[in-house]
Structures are given as C-alpha cells and as structure tokens.
C-alpha cells in the first residue's frame, strides 16, 4: 500500500524488538468478544489512476459554477478567488501542520493568524478577533453562549431576517441550556424594529440581527443596538465581510459581538463547507470569547514572535469551565481569507463590493421590468435581492439550468408567506451579458 512504508521485513524486525511473535499478538489485549472477525464491507482498494477517474466521474455529475452563470446566494457566494490564494494554502508547510502548540516551529501559522485577526478587526471596527469558528451559523451560536456567560440572562431575541440555518443552529445549540429564543417579525423584507423592541426584556442576554439580511436588505443596525443597550442586552451583528468594503463597520454602530460567514473571502463554495466563521468583539469581553487567539510577544533573544494566548479560556486547560468546547477550528480557511484580503487590499475589496452592488441593482431593475415579475421589497440592498415571480422557484430553476444558469432560490421553504419569492445574488464575477441572459431566460419561464 502506497501510504504505508513498513515491509514484511520491517515488520519482522520490529516485532522482534518488541518481543511479540506476530502482529496479531499486538492486539491480544482486545477481548475476543469485542474483536471484529469479519471483513469490512467496503469497496476494494483503488489504485491512484482508478481513484482519480472515479472521483472525476462523480464530480462530473455536479454543477461546476465555473461552467454556469451562478446567481445563487443565501449564505454562500461565487466571488472571484485570486490564483494566489490556492497557491499559498497549498504549501504543505501550512496545510500539513497541526494547531501551533510549539511556537518555535509554528511562527508561520501563528503570524498568519495574528494578521488575520488584525484584518478582521479592521473590517469590523472591533478590538479583537479570534482565529475562527466553524462557520457563520456556529459563530452566531457561540456569540449567544458568550453573551449568556457574560450577563447570565436567558432570553435571546433574534430577527427573522437572520439566515434560517443560523437561527436553526442557534436553537439546536441552546435546547439543552434552558434558554429561550424569540423571533422578531418582518416588514418589507426588514426586521420590524417595533416588534424587536417589544421582545427585549430585562432578561434578554442579546439581540441578533443581520445586515445585509437574508434577503440582501440593509438593516438599521444602529437602531437595534440602541434598543438592545437600553435594556442592558448585548448586540450581536451578523455581517457579510465583503459588504464591509462599503458598509459601515459594526463597531461604529455599537455592536458588542460581530460575526458571520467568511466563505466569500477566498474560499470555494464546496457544497457548503469547509467555511469559516469570523468572530470579533470588544476588548473588555475578550476573556469570555470562544476559540483560539494569537498574541504578540518576544523570544529569549528579544525578537518579536507570536504565541497562542489567553488559553485559560479554552477546553484543553479549563475542561468543563471553558468558554466553548471548540478545539479544531478553520485555520486554513482563515489563512485563505487573509491571503484574499491581502491580494484585494484596501481598494480591491471596495471595488468587489461596489461592482457586486451595481450589478445586483442592474439585475433587479431588469428582472422587475419583466411582465409578471416585481421587486419584492423597497429597502436598500447590497448584492442580493428578492423578486416576486409568477411561478414557483422549482419551475424557474429548471428552466435556468437548460441555459446553464443557476439561481432563483424559492424562499417559501423557510418563509411560507414568501412562496414564489425568489432570491438572487450577483457578485462582481457576473458580466452584464450574463445578467442579460438571465433576464432573457426568465422572460421565457411560463
């Protein structure tokens, strides 16, 4: 077997050194009644060429977004990934390393995380960011656990315009903890701030809103922060990091915790993962923060260096008293995000955001002018929008596929009142010609 170097002769020599007669003898401590005596019912081993061919056959059954015009969104986006990103994360000094427990031989990973933390702080306007959480949904759940640990309160107020997967994950997480989740309703594709305000009580641990929200609309986050703080609750802002090239950083409108899905920053869509949850907060809350943190220090020779720090928050030190159970995070995805932000830089990120917004607005205007179609909401939006269609999403998607176009997710699955309301996302990758082709295809849908 190509991954196993021990030959029969190696095995013999090693058994002799151990003083055991056979490999079977090495397993003599496993009681007979729990030994597996059969042969695993798995397909036979494949050679490398056979394996490559098999995997290509499977992949060929899927829609490679590079061969389609992708207008799908809803938490995963087809932004351009510069060539540099994959070259850097393919360096095996990065991807075959473990968590940097030995800083003297892990300065590459440690410094990269420090730089990533800085980039996230700059984007969000916050003091401190961790080394990543699993994804956007789990970052929101961890934000709630952190809020609860900070103020001990038991009610969570979340907008219904927050991504449905995030809300569902949050509910799953808190089911065992005796916390109550209440949802604020919608008006015109935005959080109903009056309803949100009424739900916030003296026992509210945090208020969660997303902007741009699940429909792509830009929320009045400053107002929600004010409502939360008036009752002493924390405000959790869920944001799209690409939008922060243009939109106000949450630190400026009073967010206490800022988190979200970082996939758009240089990570492929990969059928839903691996992604990364970014997570930032204020310095005064850092000791309640989940996940790894890298800090700057000096070495025995006086040089600058980096180490994992404030580890007394973490499970391997504190066990059941840790701020979170997270151990493995999404370090390589965070590295991809850092490389992406380094390549795009100050102006590139802004241009990605600006082009996505301009193209999304062009697309909505064109689609809304098709007879029978209309814009669902009037609120300002960023790169994603909802249109009301004369037919259901499945019919639309089926027709679009014949034109090699992906898009038009029907919101009825998550919001029964929004059946036949279709979600489209437009990134900087989409050309005017592709948008026009989408419009032409939608005109044909009956």
């Amino acid at each position, binding site marked *: 077997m190509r991954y196993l170097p021990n030959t029969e002769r190696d095995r013999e020599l090693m058994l002799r050194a151990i003083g055991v007669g056979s490999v079977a003898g090495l397993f003599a401590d496993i009681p007979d009644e729990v030994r*597996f005596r059969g042969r695993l019912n798995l397909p036979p081993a494949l050679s490398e060429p056979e394996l490559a061919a098999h995997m290509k056959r499977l992949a060929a059954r899927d829609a490679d977004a590079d061969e389609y015009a992708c207008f799908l969104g809803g938490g995963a986006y087809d932004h351009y990934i510069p060539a540099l990103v994959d070259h850097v994360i393919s360096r095996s000094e990065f991807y075959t390393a473990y968590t940097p427990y030995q800083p003297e031989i*892990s300065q590459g990973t440690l410094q990269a995380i420090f730089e990533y933390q800085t980039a996230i702080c700059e984007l969000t306007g916050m003091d401190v960011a961790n080394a990543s959480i699993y994804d956007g949904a789990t970052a929101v759940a961890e934000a709630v656990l952190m809020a609860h640990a900070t103020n001990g309160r038991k009610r969570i107020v979340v907008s219904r315009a927050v991504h449905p997967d995030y809300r569902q994950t949050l509910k799953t997480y808190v089911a065992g903890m005796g916390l109550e989740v209440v949802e604020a309703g919608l008006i015109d594709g935005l959080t109903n701030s009056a309803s949100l305000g009424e739900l916030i009580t003296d026992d509210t641990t945090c208020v969660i809103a997303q902007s741009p929200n699940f429909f792509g609309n830009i929320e009045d986050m400053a107002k929600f922060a004010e409502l939360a703080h008036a009752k002493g609750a924390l405000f959790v802002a869920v944001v799209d990091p690409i939008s922060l090239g243009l939109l106000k950083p949450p630190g400026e409108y009073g967010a206490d915790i800022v988190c979200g899905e970082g996939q758009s920053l240089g990570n492929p869509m990969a059928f839903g993962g691996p992604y990364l949850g970014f997570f930032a907060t204020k310095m005064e809350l850092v000791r309640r923060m989940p996940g790894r943190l890298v800090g700057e220090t000096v070495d025995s020779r006086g040089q600058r260096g980096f180490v994992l720090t404030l580890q007394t928050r973490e499970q391997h030190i504190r066990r059941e008293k840790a701020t979170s159970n997270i151990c493995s995070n999404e370090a390589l995805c965070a590295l991809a995000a850092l490389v992406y932000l380094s390549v795009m830089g100050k102006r590139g990120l802004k241009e990605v955001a600006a082009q996505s917004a301009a193209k999304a607005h062009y697309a909505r205007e064109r689609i809304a002018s098709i007879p029978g179609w209309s814009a669902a909401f009037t609120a*300002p939006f960023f790169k994603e929008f909802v249109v009301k269609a004369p037919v259901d999403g499945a019919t639309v998607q089926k027709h679009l596929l014949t034109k090699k176009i992906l898009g038009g997710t029907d919101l009825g699955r998550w919001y029964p009142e929004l059946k036949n309301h279709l979600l489209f996302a437009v990134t900087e990758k989409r050309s005017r010609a592709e948008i026009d082709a989408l419009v032409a295809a939608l005109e044909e849908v009956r």
Partner: protein
Amino acid sequence: MKSLQPLIFELSSPGREAYSLPEQDVPGQANEFIPAEFLRDRDPALPEVSEVDVIRHFTGLSQLNHGVDTGFYPLGSCTMKYNPKINEDVARLGGFANLHPLAPEEVAQGALQLMYEMQQYLAEIAGMDAITLQPAAGAHGELTGLMLIRAYHRKRGELGRTKVIVPDSAHGTNPASAAVNGFQIVQVKSDGRGGVDIEALKQVLGPDVACLMLTNPNTLGLFDENIRLIADLVHQAGGLLYYDGANANAIMGIARPGDAGFDVVHFNLHKTFSTPHGGGGPGSGPVGCKKELAPFLPVPVVARKDSRYFLDYDRPDSIGRVKSFYANFGVVVKAYAYIRAMGPDGLVRASEDAVLNANYLAAKLKEKYHLVYDRLCKHEFVLSADWQKRVTGVRTLDIAKRLLDFGFHPPTVYFPLIVEECLMIEPTETESRETLDAFVAAMLQIADEAAHYPEKVKTAPHTTVVGRLDESRAARQPVLRWRPTAE
C-alpha cells in the same frame, strides 16, 4: 533561507495593488443605491501590496512552519499521518469545489452520492446503523452526539438524566462539550492499569446518568479490557455509551465501537482518515449512532430513493441542525478518497502498522525513559520524564524543546493530566522504521545530555529561528492585533 518576516501590514505602500478585476460594465455607483448613513467613511487599513509582495510574504511565513511533509510529527492523540496528495487534487475538482450548496439536487448528484456512500462506509467501520456528516470537527461531533443522547432520554420521558461521566484521562473537549450542552460532569478515576476504575464507576452510575464518554484506546494508548463490563454496567443503569473516536486509528477493521456496546460515536476525519489539519482546521467530525438514536440525527441527512440521492429534511424528531448546509464537504471528499484508496484490507493494515510503530518506539525508549504503563499499547503510548526531572532537573518541556533541534515535532506534552511530566507519543503508520530509529536516537541522545549536560537541554532550542517565547508576557499584556501608526 528561513527568517522572520515583517507583518503584511508593515509591507503596505499606498497605491500598490495585487488585484485585478474587469471594468464595471453596468451603470451606477454604490452611493446612488445605498443611503450615505449606511456607508463607511474610512477604508479599512488592509494592506496595499503587490502580487510579488504577497507570495514572498506567505512563502516566507510557510518556511517557519513544521508540517507532516517537513518531518516526523508524533503528536499524541492528533494522528499526524501523511496527507495523500491525490486527495488534495480531487477535492479541488470543479464539480466539488465550485458546487453551490443551494444548487438544485439534480445537478448535485455526484456530491450527494459521495456523501451517501461515505455515511455507509463510516457506519460499517463504526459498527453503527446511521451517520451524520454534518459536524465540522471532533468537538462539534461530541456536542452533536450528546444532543442525540439528550433527545433520546427526553423522548423516553427520562428528563432526570443530567449527568455525563468522563474518565480523568479524557480529552478536554469531552467535559467541555458536555458542559456547553448543559450537562453536569462527573469525573471517574483510572485504575492502576490505566483503564476505567470499575468500582468508582459503579458508585457514580444511577438514574441521573445520561451517558459515559469513553475513548478506547484511551489517551494513555491503552485498550480498556473491561469494555464489555463497562458497557453492561452503563446500560443496566439506563445510560448510554459515547465513543470519542479521536483514537480510532488503532482499531479500523479490528474492533468496532458498535460491537463493543457503544451507542454513539464520532470520528475525526482529519485524524483517522488522513485529511490535513491545516494548522488547526478545518476538521470534520461525523457522528454515528445505533438505530434507536437515528431519528434524532441533525437535518438534513443524505438519502436515496431509487437511483436518486436527496437531502432528507422530513425527520420530525431531529435535534435540528448544528451548522449551515450539510457538512465540511471538502474534507469529506478527501476522507472518502482515502477510504477508497485503502479498501477494507488497507484500513486494517494501517491500524496494524500504527500499533506496531507505537509498540516499537515504546520498546526502544523504555530503557532511558519511564514507560508508565509497561504493557501492550495501541496507536500511542505515554512516557514520563519524572526520572530525568528528579535526577537532573530536566523537565518534559525541555526535552520537547530539545527535539526541535533534531528536526522533529515533539510529542504531546503534559497530557493526559494524570501522568506527571507526560510525553504522549503517536508515530502513526505512515512513518518508516528508519524515521522511528532516527527519533529513538535523538531521544536517547537527549536522555544522555540530560544526565551529563542538563543546561544544553534546559536552554533548548538552539537552532530554530526563534527561541523560547515569553507566553506569560503575551497573556499579561495582550497584543492581539497590529495597529496602524497615526498618519
């Protein structure tokens, strides 16, 4: 040449750029669409650097790292085995990497088939009835598994099962996952042979116990010979048995958790199934369970009807979802490729060689180091540097740091907590006898140095780009980000 690098932010020079985008081909600017109150006034201080700056910077950083591809990495309980390169390639195939999670199922059949088959493979290896691929890491799998256990007891009306038992040798994630889930943690001590102390276990079992979380082989690398008895005792008390699969590399095709009486199991695909650790992640932590617990699995699970694969959301007793979408799919692809490359016999052979390599190292090192449990080990074993510490003052940390000078990553140190001056060594099956011998030679030389030139060990490392780092300073005066100097 390896050298320390400035921060990418410190390379920034206004006006420099590394990106390129096509000209915008639609009309309009953002400030026409979005009211000014929502727009930022100040740009984030992201770097302004050229493409060459970026690649030199990150290449320079990478050279400061040690990875499996750089050299031996015997980090106990982390299973730092070789990461096959073909797996990296196939995960980047367009049909996998560029597949949107909300693409219609009819154009995601390859991905769904792969996930469906992976559920079956893992169920077979675990001896379980059903699998979810959704959890993003081992600890996330623990959390999910415990949620299943809670849901199972609740469904049966047993609301009083609020306690989770963990051995004192357990990974830190076990008690942390149970606590995050709202359980109370009861610790049970180990016996003289390194297994669960049966009498101590009996005393804590009762109608308030939800489950026992067990790693087997445990973090000492020892297979608990009483596993059947333990399973019977826990089940008789109405509790369930949770298998922490962090150490499953010792048992593939040799012992199946399901056959030993475990009810729920998680695997770490980034350990046992060869996917890379990425400097800390991404991982993937699929969870398996017996059929009694299957209704509670997170939604969606991948199912098949006739020849069509689909995402099944119609599961009324499900605990809900534990992350967005379906799984760390890109990681699952690599682990799937590994299982297909190894086949049923290859997996057995991998576990055999993992155990052979560990026992070989233990036999060679026990002359100069205290082998705490001198019996057959499985994929890993623990040494103590208590002999060295007592005689020469050289501690485990010093030995670990001295190993860096020999080009080896040190073993896991000071874990498990129940062994003083602990070194936990896991060579894995992908290392050759020659590599193991070189490691033995280094360890024996360090033992010799500790006896005769202890200062040399205590001041190590001597050859790395940075020396020992001041961790207490980092914690005392946290500097957690770079800040731009005022312009």
